[in-house]
């Protein structure tokens, strides 16, 4: 806030009591603004909480991908050292398998490995079953050999209390980094089981990590340690070289040979970052493979086709609405008020019946044993054997949706046409124009804003339409929205659904912008 002291020498305009005029004005306006804000606050909060926030969250899911880095964080870090090479690629080294071993041991306890499997399965089929299988097998690996060898060396290794004491000692984390990291997982596992840490003997993966740490550390580092269990640790350090090594890679391969497949590791690496463009790529029939962005296999390319179909059918529906709605709106706007009000009620009547009822009515009318086919057969126009297929295809969707969306075209048209004075057409005729010329050159251009408004409304409503195509669309008449609903409720691939929805939203916004550039949104009039 500015006051008189730091303003230029001419000084600000002062109000009668000496405060700067701007300040007084602000104070006076603030109360008004606050009042206005208070009035809209309930609705604003309601919309924010129940509408905007969920939508924003949903859209965010289209890029969100932290499940991989949260479930197998060590593996993700270990994989940074490894590069996927197309063709002659090889699986990563033992470090990565060790990291995966610890990660999956924890994930198996929390059952998060199945979620990870479902997620990665969207990208490479087989990942889900691979991870389930590995989860089941991870407790039965041969790593208990390490445990037995440590116990044989010193039975104190069986004592959970000794472990707790040692792992809590300062400096251990530096000497035994992998063990310390695995120990954290172990703490979470024990807590999840509601057990006491000092009473539970650590599982094999802790001993495995201990073995790896002791092999990796130079003897001097271990010898420098003097905390709890120092003797036991130093004894183990000198003995580990004689332990029989167990290849974790082999252990994983025993569970499933796919773990040798570089493709699997490539997929994990490609989707290891917390944000991904993968869902968006899938939405446009591309895929993120370990080797980069590629086309989806031909038989899986459906989304571009669906987007195209949605656009095309929405255009057709919009066009039919213009063709059918324009004459009605014209009639309505040129009738005496009482008659036109009655007709307007008839136009609005469909709004008072359920959408489901209207759509179902079209099923009754259009199906092969339906009313229209019966009449055509009765008239002899169509043979009983080959009744027309008018439902569960594009035709049915277009007919039903045109009917349902027609009022949204008629109302803006009507309100625009009502404001066109009849004297324009009269003037045109008096100037020598025929009925058609007067309409086309004078009346029609002035009704264009109504067409624009109606078209935007109908088009935007129809490209997001769900219920009607779902009910009467069959396989050839479904929209992108039906696919989104499928991913939300059936396949549970919410990320892909969110990406498809985001694209749909973007398309609408782009069309709106294009329309604004061409026609001008100021020219859109809803009356």
């Amino acid at each position, binding site marked *: 806030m500015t006051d008189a002291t730091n303003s230029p020498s001419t000084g600000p305009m002062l109000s009668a009591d000496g405060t700067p005029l701007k300040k007084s004005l602000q104070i006076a306006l603030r109360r008004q603004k606050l009042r206005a804000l208070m009035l809209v606050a309930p609705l604003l909060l309601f919309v924010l909480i129940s509408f905007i926030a969920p939508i924003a969250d949903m859209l965010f899911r289209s890029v969100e991908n932290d499940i991989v880095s949260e479930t197998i964080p060590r593996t993700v870090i270990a994989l940074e050292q490894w590069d996927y090479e197309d063709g002659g690629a090889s699986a990563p080294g033992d470090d990565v398998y060790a990291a995966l071993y610890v990660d999956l041991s924890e994930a198996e306890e929390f059952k998060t490995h199945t979620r990870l499997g479902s997620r990665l399965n969207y990208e490479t089929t087989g990942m889900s079953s691979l991870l389930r299988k590995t989860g089941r097998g991870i407790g039965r690996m041969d790593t208990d050999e390490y445990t037995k060898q440590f116990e044989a060396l010193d039975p104190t290794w069986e004592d959970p209390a000794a472990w707790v004491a040692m792992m809590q000692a300062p400096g251990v984390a530096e000497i035994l980094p992998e063990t310390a990291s695995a120990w954290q997982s172990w703490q979470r596992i024990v807590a999840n089981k509601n057990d006491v840490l000092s009473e539970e003997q650590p599982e094999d993966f802790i001993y495995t990590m201990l073995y790896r740490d002791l092999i990796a550390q130079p003897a001097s580092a271990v010898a420098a340690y003097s905390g709890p269990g120092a003797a036991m640790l130093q004894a183990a350090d000198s003995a580990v070289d004689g332990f029989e090594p167990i290849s974790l890679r082999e252990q994983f391969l025993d569970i499933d040979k796919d773990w040798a497949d570089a493709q699997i590791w490539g997929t994990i690496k490609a989707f290891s970052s917390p944000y991904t463009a993968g869902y968006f790529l899938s939405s446009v029939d591309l895929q993120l493979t370990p080797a980069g962005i590629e086309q989806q296999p031909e038989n899986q390319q459906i989304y571009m086709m669906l987007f195209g179909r949605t656009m095309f059918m929405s255009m057709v529906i919009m066009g039919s609405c213009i063709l059918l709605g324009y004459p009605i709106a014209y009639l309505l706007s040129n009738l005496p008020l009482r008659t036109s009000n009655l007709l307007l009620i008839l136009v609005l009547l469909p709004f008072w019946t359920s959408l489901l009822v209207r759509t179902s009515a079209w099923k009754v009318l259009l199906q092969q044993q339906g009313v229209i086919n019966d009449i055509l057969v009765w008239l002899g126009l169509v043979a009983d054997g080959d009744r027309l297929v008018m439902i569960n295809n594009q035709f049915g969707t277009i007919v039903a949706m045109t009917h349902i969306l027609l009022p949204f075209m008629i109302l803006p048209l009507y309100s625009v046409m009502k404001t066109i*004075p009849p*004297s*324009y057409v*009269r*003037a*045109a*005729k*008096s*100037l*020598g*124009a*025929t*009925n058609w*010329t*007067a309409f086309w*050159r*004078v009346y029609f*251009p*002035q009704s264009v804003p109504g067409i624009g408004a109606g078209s935007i409304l109908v088009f935007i409503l129809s490209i997001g339409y769900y219920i009607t195509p779902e009910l009467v669309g069959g396989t050839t008449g479904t929209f992108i929205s039906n696919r989104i609903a499928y991913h939300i409720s059936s396949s549970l691939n919410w990320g892909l659904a969110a990406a498809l929805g985001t694209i749909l939203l973007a398309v609408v916004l782009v069309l709106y912008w294009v329309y604004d550039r061409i026609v001008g949104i100021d020219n859109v009039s809803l009356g």
Partner: protein
Amino acid sequence: MVSTNTDDGFVVFDGVQKSYDGENLVVKDLNLSIARGEFLTMLGPSGSGKTTCLMMLAGFETATNGAIRLGGKEINNIPPHKRGIGMVFQNYALFPHMTVAENLSFPLEVRKIGKAEREAKVQRALDMVQMGDFGGRRPAQLSGGQQQRIALARALVFEAELVLMDEPLGALDKQLREHMQFEIKHIADNLGITVVYVTHDQTEALTMSDRVAVFEDGRIQQLAPPDELYEQPKNSFVAQFIGENNTLMGKVEKIDKDLAVVRLDNGDLIDTVPVNVSSVGDRTLVSIRPERVEFNRERLLPDAHTLKAEVLEFIYMGDIYRTRLRVAGKDDFIVKTRNAPDQRRLKPGEVIEIGWRPQDCRALDA
């Protein structure tokens, strides 16, 4: 009945009737003949049928009965766009999505006139209404007066011989309206076109017209040149509708060919011209224009009847004085006098004697 001389009967309404609901006649038996080059105004209050007559002539309404002829040819069944009649609408009806030049070019385009000729004609029409530089503007960018000029130019650009105007100046302010009245009149005179002009503004009708047809109740009450209409109204409706007017009620006491003595309801006698009275004893409404009332005894005939009047109010209006008097028991008797150096200013409370030349006071239907 049919006049073959198109100069006398360029536009002819012959027994035209119009009804919208089959029960009431909006236009009752209209007979009107308009000469070529004439400026005829249809004047009347709203609902008097004047606009309906215009719309029938333009072709937007069909006559229920009777014939309308243009240049000797019956046009009842000719659609509006083939009548070749120019029309100026009340709200101008300039096409908002076209520029001024496109608006003017429109009637030429539909007549399939070549581009060069079209442009020349448009420019000529724009120059005629002194709007030569405005061809590229949109109607919304023009003021009301400018739109009015464009509407006029558009009605004239295709060289129609007959131009209809439906209260074209109604939306303009007073000063502009008066200016446009003269301008329309001059343009019409210069081009020699026939104009049928509809208005409810009597000043406008008097200023512009060759003849005025006063409409009321679906009929023409009087068809006459402006001066005749003002000075010799044929009935009490016309007298009261046109200009300001003092009225007194009375009974015919004595009647000659061109002088009737009327006894007012308070017993006073006055001299009048008999117009709609025929015999002694008839109830009559006596009409006298405020500016024809005389209170200078010397200017009246020696044997003229006079009335006592009490001055109630004196209003100074610049060019004239307006004095309200109580005459024969009525408080709304107005006298208008010119503001001249020797003019006497009456004072409220003063009692004077007023009179008039018998030919200025008309005994009409009661």
